[in-house]
């Protein structure tokens, strides 16, 4: 039989919908990055602090939403307790920073601790599927949050306060965590790196198994893959993405509180992903920006901003079920496909 030449092989990639969609996501993220640089320039020129810090927070929660989309949009796992890892990263980071204000020590500790913590909790959560997975993840997070809430050594309900300003040594320069423009740009790069790592992983052969799990998990074992192993691996990866995002939180805000692990935080991330577009990655970042802006704008007008967010969420689910990026991205993917041919 005639074998496909490598030219044929690359032509095949025009039929690789997941790969095209991911490249369309890259285009959207590049647009977001350009806009963010413009925003930073304006912020710097106007000597702004408030909006830069708000945007930094949006990026941090955007990184967290990425991890929720990895599970929900790419693997088909709805976690209702994913804030556990965001909060875990924030607390570990805060505890390290209080000892020694070293960015790299904090990141190293968060990475190592989440690997272990994510694996153990992942073993529990991944024993079940579907609705039960949502309930178990919710349960684990509630138990952990309550435990933190009642632990004096972790500041109990007050959380940990008085996190020092962190000098982030990048070798060629040092970014101070209290410098609005510099820390915003640093967070932008950091979150984009998380995006790149996630997007890369989802585009590998391993990543495609996750897509297969989402679409039809019953066939996956017959292709030679353990569904449990694949699910557990991506669960730990998503936990690490969430925790690394959370690790930046105390650097921005100077404190952490048990609310970071509560259901509201988990639920907000799910809303963020749904508004931005489930299974688009870029949507997680856009969704976070939209939600953060809305919350602060509406928050200045009325204290009932949650009602507005709730209505927006319902409207998106009903009228734009694929979310914002779910509408925009296919158009870009079609162009890319045309170009690939």
């Amino acid at each position, binding site marked *: *039989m*005639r*074998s*496909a030449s*490598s030219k*044929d*092989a*690359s032509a*095949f*990639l*025009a*039929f*690789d*919908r*997941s*790969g095209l969609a991911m490249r369309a996501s890259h285009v959207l993220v590049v647009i977001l990055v350009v806009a963010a640089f413009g925003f930073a320039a304006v912020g710097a020129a106007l000597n702004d602090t408030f909006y830069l810090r708000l945007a930094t927070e949006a990026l941090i929660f955007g990184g967290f939403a990425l991890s929720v989309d990895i599970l929900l949009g790419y693997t088909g796992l709805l976690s209702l307790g994913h804030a556990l890892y965001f909060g875990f990263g924030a607390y570990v980071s805060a505890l390290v920073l209080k000892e020694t204000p070293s960015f790299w020590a904090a990141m190293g500790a968060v990475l190592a601790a989440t690997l272990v913590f994510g694996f153990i909790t992942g073993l529990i959560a991944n024993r079940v599927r579907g609705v039960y997975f949502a309930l178990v993840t919710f349960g684990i997070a509630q138990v952990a949050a309550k435990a933190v809430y009642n632990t004096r050594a972790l500041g109990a309900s007050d959380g940990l306060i008085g996190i020092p300003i962190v000098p982030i040594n990048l070798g060629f320069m040092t970014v101070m965590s209290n410098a609005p423009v510099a820390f915003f740009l640093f967070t932008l790069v950091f979150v984009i790196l998380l995006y790149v790592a996630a997007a*890369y*992983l989802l*585009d*590998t*052969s*391993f990543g*495609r*198994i996750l*897509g*297969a799990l989402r*679409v*039809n998990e*019953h*066939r*996956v*074992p*017959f*292709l*030679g*893959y*353990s*569904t449990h192993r694949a699910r557990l691996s991506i669960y730990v990866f998503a936990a690490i993405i969430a925790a690394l995002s959370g690790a930046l939180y105390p650097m921005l805000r100077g404190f952490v509180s048990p609310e970071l692990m509560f259901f509201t935080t988990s639920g907000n991330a799910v809303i963020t992903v749904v508004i931005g577009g489930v299974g688009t990655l870029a949507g997680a970042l856009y969704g976070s920006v939209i939600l953060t802006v809305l919350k602060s704008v509406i928050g200045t007008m009325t204290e009932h901003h949650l009602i507005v967010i709730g209505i927006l969420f319902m409207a998106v689910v009903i009228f734009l079920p694929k979310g914002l990026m779910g509408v925009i991205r296919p158009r870009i993917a079609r162009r890319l496909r045309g170009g690939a041919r």
Partner: protein
Amino acid sequence: MTPALQVEGLGVAFGGIRAVDGVSFMAQRQAITTVIGPNGAGKSTLFNLISGQIPPHTGRVALDGVDRTGAPPHLMQRAGLGRSFQITNLFFELTVFENLQLAAQRLEPPRQMLRRIGHGEASLQRVGELVERFSLAAKLGELAGALSHGEQRRLEIAVALAAKPSVLLLDEPTQGMSHGDTADTARLIRDLSRDVTILLIEHDIGLVMDISDHIVVMHQGRMLAEGAPPEVRANPAVKAAYFGDASC
């Protein structure tokens, strides 16, 4: 030479009903072994037992002479088993290319798992072979769910075959196909059997007699008879239990 697949005393019961009860046979290399029997005879359940989807209560399964009894499906696959399903079991929301790519990527060395799929030469080449063999080249960019029934049945076989198994289990591959498609598929299966051991479940008795090297007859979970097509056709017990009520 050890047979490619050996099944001995295989059995399972669902709430007291013995769906498969003490079935023993061998599937020889480069041959087509066909399992026949009326609806509910336990044919698909037998496939589920062999492929590891259901752990057997009794008996054992050996692949290439190695005992694999109780191994889960993904390990059976790695041991060289491929299977298709009676009810089309594809990734309907993925394209034909993505379905085949997923099924073929086991051919890659382990390090490919963490590399972009475009780097997987072996699997891309395999996809190229499969689309030619199964006439799916024009459909590569279509969602599997948008294919015609006949195309989906072809893709179902292609996916099962993608990772180059040594034993291929096909559960009613021609189910619901038109007459012409059925004949084409029979020819295709005959061709495939030159490289891979085939265990087939098929209802079209004319087709079965035509392409099988060995036939296993099941009835109410038990093995009623086995042998070459003429022997099975001549067997009075088979005539009574199977050809009697399947003459339609």
